[in-house]
């Protein structure tokens, strides 16, 4: 992996034309031979993980939630930790696709498709947990969804858990619709480029007969802006509502008003870290360095740094609240269960992972060193998981009645299911890379059109159809 790519303000580097932009994205689908050993290795890892998930779900449904380590007083453990972790990872996708669109941040064009796919897959993984936590999901359906049933029963709308059902299912639906809508024009492009009969038919069906007419684009743009405008408050509300699951209860360590903003920032933080964990290897492996430039990585690092600081502020405020509240139980939680005690290692690892290590990104050199960026992102992913672990099981072990304090120990099945969802996620990402345009083709052309009009150094050569199969980074002459 070359770590010596130049940082400048050009969002598409190298010599590119509409055709070459399209080609470097489209060939991932049209040329199966591009997916070599690396793809197959991850595909099989993902497939194995999916199998593991299947096995653990089957055993769980057969045997019941007793196979997990959850027990009183720690009734919420890995399942809810993983739920919050996954759903948080999804939030970066919506932030990139919606909020950055509203702010007219053109650089998002090359990463939004990828991040949106992550959103959808992460929400799928997240949704599994609360559903399976009910133990008998097929019976639980009337607890969750309000529909007239023969028992004459309704869900309790005053419960934060019911709000969660609405928030997460709306989030999933809207993200899926938003993602699919953006894919329609690209499906049309793939339909027209595909030489393979099966591919042509499949893409023709998926593209719904899109013909790129001005009327289509006109309404597409309207719907796109509206969905972006709707997704923005939606993404903020989803993690806010997730944090209400904790914040509106009276559990020690949960009843804190800083939770909603701190959870939202944490979600974006974790999500950007995951985007980079996937994107850095993918852009290197598939030669997408001209489209996802070092400038993108640099900006994502800055967002990581900013949201990381908000999260760190949340940790500091939790400690402050632990002492300032004057509540002996809160103080005891902070002192005896977080700073010291059997779980203190996790707490301090969390501070290290999320508070200290991301500060490396203050140094510009670190933001352009791909190895460092990848490692820091990985550490942030772990740190965000630890954060939920610290908040959920650790708070529950400490009770108002000291006699009921009890340690939490996960079982093998807890780990297997977590590993299984990670595998499932990798599996879906690999299929996405293979069968769908991983970068938004038409938005990249739009960006290229603007780059050309901005008297950039990039010289458009529209006739360069198929002339370059593997655009290499050109020698950069103007670092900004």
């Amino acid at each position, binding site marked *: 992996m070359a770590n010596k790519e130049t940082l400048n303000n050009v969002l598409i580097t190298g010599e590119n034309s509409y*055709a070459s932009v399209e080609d470097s994205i489209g060939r991932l689908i049209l040329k199966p031979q591009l997916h070599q050993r690396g793809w197959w290795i991850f595909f099989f890892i993902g497939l194995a993980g999916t199998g593991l998930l299947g096995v653990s779900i089957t055993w769980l449904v057969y045997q019941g939630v007793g196979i997990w380590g959850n027990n009183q007083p720690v009734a919420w453990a890995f399942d809810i930790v993983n739920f919050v972790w996954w759903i948080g990872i999804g939030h970066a996708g919506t932030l990139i696709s919606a909020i950055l669109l509203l702010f007219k941040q053109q650089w998002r064009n090359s990463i939004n498709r990828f991040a949106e796919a992550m959103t959808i897959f992460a929400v799928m993984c997240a949704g599994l947990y609360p559903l399976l936590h009910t133990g008998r999901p097929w019976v639980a359906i009337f607890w969750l969804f309000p529909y007239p049933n023969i028992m004459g029963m309704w869900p309790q709308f005053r419960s934060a858990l019911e709000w969660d059902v609405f928030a997460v299912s709306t989030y999933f639906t809207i993200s899926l619709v938003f993602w699919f809508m953006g894919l329609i024009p690209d499906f049309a492009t793939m339909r027209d480029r595909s030489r393979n009969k099966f591919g042509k038919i499949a893409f023709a069906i998926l593209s719904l007969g899109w013909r790129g007419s001005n009327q289509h684009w006109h309404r597409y743009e309207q719907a796109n802006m509206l969905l972006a405008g709707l997704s923005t408050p939606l993404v903020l509300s989803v993690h806010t509502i997730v944090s209400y699951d904790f914040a509106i209860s009276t559990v020690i360590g949960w009843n804190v008003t800083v939770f909603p903003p701190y959870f939202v920032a944490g979600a974006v933080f974790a999500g950007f870290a995951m985007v980079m964990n996937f994107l850095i290897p993918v852009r290197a492996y598939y030669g997408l360095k001209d489209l996802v430039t070092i400038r993108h990585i640099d900006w994502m690092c800055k967002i990581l740094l900013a949201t990381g600081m908000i999260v760190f502020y949340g940790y500091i405020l939790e400690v402050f609240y632990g002492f300032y509240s004057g509540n002996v139980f809160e103080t005891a939680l902070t002192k005896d269960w977080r700073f010291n005690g059997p779980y203190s290692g996790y707490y301090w690892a969390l501070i290290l992972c999320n508070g200290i290590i991301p500060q490396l990104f203050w140094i510009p050199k670190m933001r352009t060193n791909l190895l460092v960026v990848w490692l820091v992102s990985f550490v942030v992913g772990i740190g965000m998981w630890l954060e939920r672990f610290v908040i959920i099981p650790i708070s529950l072990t400490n009770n108002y009645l000291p006699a009921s304090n009890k340690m939490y120990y996960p079982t093998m099945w807890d780990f297997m299911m977590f590993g299984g969802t990670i595998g499932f996620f990798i599996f879906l990402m690999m299929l996405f890379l293979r069968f769908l345009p991983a970068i938004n083709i038409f938005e990249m052309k739009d960006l290229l059109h603007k780059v050309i009009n901005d008297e950039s150094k990039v010289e458009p050569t529209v006739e360069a159809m198929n002339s370059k199969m593997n655009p290499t980074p050109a020698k950069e002459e103007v670092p900004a």
Partner: protein
Amino acid sequence: MSHAVAEETSTVYAIVAEFDTPEKLMSAAESARKAGFKKMDAYSPFPIHGLSEAIGFKDVKVPFLCFAGGLTGALFGYTLQYYVHVFDYPMNVGGKPLVSLPSMIPVTYEATILFAGLTAFFSMIALNRLPQPYHSIFNTPGFERATQDRFFLAIEAADAHFDAEKVKRFLQDHEPIRVSEVEP
């Protein structure tokens, strides 16, 4: 095809010009509108800003439908909870009122967004008449590049001023790569 009357031109769907840059398409569309053509459409691989104005296409149905969808969603979310908690299954929780408004906000809010978002998507699809597997414009030679790197302007036979020869000459003046007559 010398005497071109709109009703009789069943053998021609449109005269289509192919351009290699969005700027040429824009100027051609602009002058076609000024020349009085109404029934025309442009085809491009990506949205071009200002093209709708150039072509004279105005449409604000999607935002209004989306707004109506949002209102419906809000009404649905709120009345669902109201009906459940007041009429169908009243439950006294700690002496709190049956309609405890703050606790009803999240579901109302999410329902608003769900309905508005789905309306925006489906009204875009429906107004664009998608899915539509066949359309006459696909008969244009080289039209597969309309989703790749070429820009097309179609002046349709349904237009009141349509005259195949004149339209061809008109389009030839705007540096097209080619101008073709397209069958329906």
